[in-house]
């Protein structure tokens, strides 16, 4: 049922696909991302905005997500998830957030930390 014949690599489609994906990556990465003007830290827990505080503060908060407590720390114009009860620890490894549109996500604990500000967001109306 299968004839075991396929084009040798690299096939024209392979190269085209890679170029297209790289182009899309570049366009998406550079449209409107000035990385400036972050002013507010917004913390959403289970889809609801729980906190909206200034980025220029020294502040640590423990929020209770689906699995347990996530600790979020704001210091010196940046913010990060310091600890989380999730198995993957992807949100903690995300590190410090500084720019508008940056975000740290914990899917298992349903916690999202992101930055907003006066600067235009990274993405336009299409993705909003």
């Amino acid at each position, binding site marked *: 049922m*299968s004839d075991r014949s396929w*084009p040798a*690599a690299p096939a024209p489609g392979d190269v085209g*696909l890679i170029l297209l*994906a790289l182009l899309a*990556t570049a366009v998406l*990465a550079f449209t409107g991302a000035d990385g400036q003007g972050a002013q507010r830290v917004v913390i959403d827990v289970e889809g609801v905005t729980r906190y909206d505080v200034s980025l220029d503060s020294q502040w640590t908060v423990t929020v209770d997500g689906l699995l347990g407590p996530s600790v979020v720390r704001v210091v010196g114009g940046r913010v990060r998830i310091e600890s989380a009860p999730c198995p993957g*620890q992807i949100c903690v490894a995300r590190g410090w957030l500084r720019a508008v549109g940056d975000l740290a996500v914990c*899917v298992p604990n349903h916690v999202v930390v*992101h930055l907003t500000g006066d600067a235009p967001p990274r993405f336009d109306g299409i993705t909003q």
Partner: protein
Amino acid sequence: MSDASRRVTRLGLLTGMALVLFLVEASLPRPLPWMRLGLANSAVLAALLLFGTGSALAVTLAKLLLGGLLGGGLAGPAFVIGSSAGLASFTAMALCWHYLPRLFSPVGLSIVGALVHQVTQLTVAALYLGHEGLFSLLPMFLLSGVASGLLTGTATYYALRALPDTSERDA
């Protein structure tokens, strides 16, 4: 061997291969936390190219279920996200293989699968979290999809070339 037992044997082997790759990968350090090689996808791709859509779907489903059991997250959000991505990735590769037969080599098919996997993962996660801001991660997800698809696709390509071309296999 009858056709039926041959089919069961070969699906068992491919599923075993997928799970071994899955476990090997789980023990590797990751350059970035959301970056995965998706090595198990090469078993799905090999099934698709050698034995057709039905076999590849069977391997995909077995991989997702057993991987979920081994990973301990069956029915959690991560399992739902991963399964959607795995199924979408399989579907995209199967469609490209059947309807655009001369366009992609196995390496290209693997990249198709990886990119669709990444976009689906992000979309389902964004829906689950109700947070469209997740799409700001899209560039990084696309880039890591190209890289991982290229690596696993190349590995699969050479593995397939090394297989002896016996009529037994396709019988």
